[in-house]
């Protein structure tokens, strides 16, 4: 799986988001807790300071009163006045009221004004040395003092005066060691809470005690505020939070302090626990995100893989994405699409296969054609160099394929064509203007042996991406040229023969006929009837011979005359000829009806000849009918237009129908119907030259019908 994929991006993003939220919340919560812890600690040290100062001020007040009382005692005054000579017992008794003799941590002294110690009782280790300064107040608590480094004590002294308001004559000093039993200490600290440190010392500085040992004074900033209302932070070994308070009536100070790290320890513990929970939340969240992501990306991954497989050609690939959600639907749609692609691909392949096969077949056929063609089939490239040479070409020009492929086409042509050829190729390459391409032209080719021969060239050109290519089909027309020449000669001979026939044969006939007539006209009276009859026979036969020659010439002319086609109005043509036929018929009853006839395409003169012959024919064979009827019409047989001429004349035997259209073929004797037997042959020749057909139906004495088709005729 790639690193850039959705499967990684989604959970990473989600986890990062979760982590950020958790961190912010954690930080906020930690700040709150820390603040609460510090507030609590501050409150505690302040309260303890206040409470303990109240407690601690009672003792000095008591000591001051005791000392003042002792100093004001008349017995003590007497003792001082006497310089210690009198009243010692008194003093002793008075002192015993304050403290027993054996009190371990207490010493009481009496001094005179000259600095002479008059009395010392109690723990002598506590004695003042040297003499304390003379107090001016009634009773004063002096600062804590350190003696012998470990002994901390405080002195309360009161002035002994002469009279009530008299001069100071001595003083009483009560000195106490500051000690606290282990039990007392535990009680005190227990009340404050075991974690709190209680310190007592001079407000001005050393010495201080933590109730167990003498310690250096806390830093000035801890001692600066001493109203117990404000807690301060300071360093004393470690960071502390403390609240200080002056003990009223003394130069001493009380300080309650908590170790700041200790105060914050639960906070850090809280932070650690919360961090663990947060980490767990993040981990669970990330896992959840990854799971969701996988649920989405796995089907997507399958789809991607399948699509890639299909793209690379494996059309059988399908995906399995269950469910009814969007992914499931996507998966099903994908499968449907894949099926569709497979189907159309298979269809396409089948088509391509089919086409390829067809192309192969077609190419094979084409190759077979070109290889077996009698004609030369030659292909050339755009420069006019031979690229393909079929066996027909080899046979025709005498070169084998290996001799000519790659060589220029000019090899195959006489020199007089070569310049034109080169120019033609160049012109076609530059302008695509072609003079020969797409047409068939007659030229001359040159064989390997140098002989020229006439050819017919059909040239095609193709412009493809690969360039221009020419394909030429060349036919050797030597034989055709020879036949054409022979045909031309034959035609000329026929023409000349026709001319001779018409001229030279008719002249003697004319003479025979003419002189027979002259004989009859000039010498008729001298001739017997038999001679006259013979002359009549000569007359008739020469006439008939002349008609035969005329008809024969007309028939032969038809074969040579060029067809000049145009639109011919057949109805009009039939009507015109019918009028002429009616005129010729004279008085005899002849009905010619002409139906609706579509126009035709053909040679007007020839069609006129054909129509004339048909109507003449019909008129001739209806001569013995009264009335004679001729019907001209048109009908459509199987989509083919057919003109017909129907008469009620002598008809003919259907068995001889095929002889009707032969030259000089007659089905009736000349005594019955005159004629040379050429008329219908001419009709057939004209119709055939127009690409049509002509046929007839009839029965003896039952009339005849002649049919003709003219493919150029418009359909009805």
């Amino acid at each position: 799986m790639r690193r850039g994929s959705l499967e990684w991006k989604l959970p990473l993003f989600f986890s990062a988001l979760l982590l950020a939220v958790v961190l912010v919340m954690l930080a906020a919560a930690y700040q709150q807790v820390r603040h609460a812890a510090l507030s609590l600690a501050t409150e505690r040290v302040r309260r303890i300071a206040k409470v303990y100062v109240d407690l601690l001020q009672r003792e000095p007040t008591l000591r001051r009163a005791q000392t003042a009382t002792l100093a004001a005692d008349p017995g003590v005054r007497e003792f001082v006045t006497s310089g210690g000579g009198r009243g010692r017992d008194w003093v002793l008794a008075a002192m015993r009221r304050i403290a027993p003799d054996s009190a371990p941590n207490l010493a009481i002294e009496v001094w005179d004004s000259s600095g002479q110690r008059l009395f010392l009782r109690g723990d002598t280790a506590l004695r003042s040395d040297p003499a304390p300064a003379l107090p001016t107040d009634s009773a004063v608590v002096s600062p804590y003092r350190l003696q012998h480094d470990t002994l901390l004590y405080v002195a309360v002294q009161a002035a002994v005066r002469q009279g009530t308001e008299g001069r100071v004559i001595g003083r009483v000093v009560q000195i106490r060691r500051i000690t606290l039993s282990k039990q007392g200490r535990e009680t005190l600290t227990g009340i404050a809470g075991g974690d709190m440190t209680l310190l007592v010392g001079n407000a001005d500085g050393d010495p201080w005690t933590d109730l167990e040992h003498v310690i250096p004074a806390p830093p000035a900033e801890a001692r600066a505020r001493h109203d117990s209302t404000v807690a301060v932070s300071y360093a004393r070994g470690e960071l502390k939070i403390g609240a200080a308070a002056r003990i009223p009536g003394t130069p001493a100070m009380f300080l309650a302090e908590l170790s700041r790290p200790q105060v914050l320890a639960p906070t850090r513990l809280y932070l650690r626990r919360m961090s663990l929970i947060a980490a767990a939340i993040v981990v669970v969240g990330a896992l959840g995100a990854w799971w969701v992501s996988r649920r989405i990306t796995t089907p997507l991954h399958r789809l991607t893989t399948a699509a890639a497989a299909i793209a690379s050609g494996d059309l059988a690939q399908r995906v399995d994405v269950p469910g009814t959600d969007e992914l499931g639907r996507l998966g099903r749609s994908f499968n449907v699409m894949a099926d569709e692609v497979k189907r159309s691909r298979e269809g396409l392949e089948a088509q391509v296969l089919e086409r390829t096969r067809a192309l192969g077949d077609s190419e094979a056929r084409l190759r077979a054609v070109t290889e077996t063609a009698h004609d030369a089939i030659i292909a050339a490239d755009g420069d006019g160099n031979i690229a393909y040479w079929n066996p027909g070409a080899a046979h025709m020009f005498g070169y084998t394929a290996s001799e000519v492929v790659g060589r220029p086409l000019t090899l195959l042509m006489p020199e007089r064509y070569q310049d034109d050829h080169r120019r033609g190729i160049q012109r076609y390459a530059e302008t695509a203007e072609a003079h020969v391409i797409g047409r068939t032209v007659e030229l001359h080719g040159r064989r390997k042996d140098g002989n020229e021969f006439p050819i017919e060239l059909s040239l095609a050109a193709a412009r493809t991406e690969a360039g221009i290519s020419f394909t030429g089909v060349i036919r050797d027309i030597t034989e055709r040229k020879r036949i054409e020449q022979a045909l031309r000669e034959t035609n000329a001979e026929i023409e000349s023969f026709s001319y001779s026939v018409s001229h030279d044969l008719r002249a003697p006939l004319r003479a025979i006929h003419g002189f027979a007539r002259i004989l009859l006209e000039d010498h008729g009276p001298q001739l017997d009837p038999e001679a006259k009859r013979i002359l009549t026979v000569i007359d008739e036969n020469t006439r008939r011979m002349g008609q035969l020659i005329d008809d024969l010439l007309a028939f032969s002319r038809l074969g040579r005359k060029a067809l000049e086609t145009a639109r011919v109005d057949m109805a009009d043509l039939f009507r015109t000829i019918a009028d002429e036929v009616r005129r010729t018929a004279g008085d005899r009853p002849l009905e010619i009806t002409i139906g609706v006839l579509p126009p035709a395409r053909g040679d007007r003169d020839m069609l006129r000849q054909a129509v004339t012959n048909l109507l003449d024919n019909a008129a001739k064979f209806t001569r013995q009918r009264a009335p004679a009827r001729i019907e001209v019409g048109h009908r459509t047989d199987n989509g083919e237009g057919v003109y017909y001429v129907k008469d009620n004349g002598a008809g003919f035997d259907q068995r001889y129908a095929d002889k009707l259209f032969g030259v000089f073929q007659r089905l009736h004797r000349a005594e019955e119907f005159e004629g040379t037997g050429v008329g219908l042959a001419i009709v057939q020749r004209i119709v055939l030259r127009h690409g049509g057909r002509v046929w007839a139906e009839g029965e003896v004495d039952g009339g005849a019908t002649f049919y003709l088709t003219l493919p150029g005729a418009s359909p009805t």
Partner: protein
Amino acid sequence: MTQPQEVEILLVEDNPNDAELTLRALKQRNLANQVFVCQDGAEALDFFFGDGSHALREIGVVPKVILLDLKLPKVDGLEVLRRLKEEDRTKRIPVVVLTSSREEPDIARAYRLGANSYIVKPVDFEAFARAVSEVGLYWLLLNHPPR
């Protein structure tokens, strides 16, 4: 034979039989007296332009109509026709072409060269006589070429 001075019809015909029949046809219409016959193309040309047996040039007599057979020995009818129509002096004389042939090229060429009409000589003598005399009469009587 008719004297050249009296010639109204010049018949150019090599076939003596045809010539005789033609003359007979013309005679029936009483036209034969003014007919002069040339037997080939060369003689016809000589009649007009030559210095041989004929002396028409000096006399200045021209026929009113020429009946010209196309198929002639030596110089054929078409050549004669061409020469006649080229010459100012003779080009106004009507020329009727006599032919045995209905072949279109001959008739078309004759008209192109300036022939005025043509007669296909039929085998039937009566038809022939009728055609010849009608055409002869037409050109003799109805047509008055400028002199």
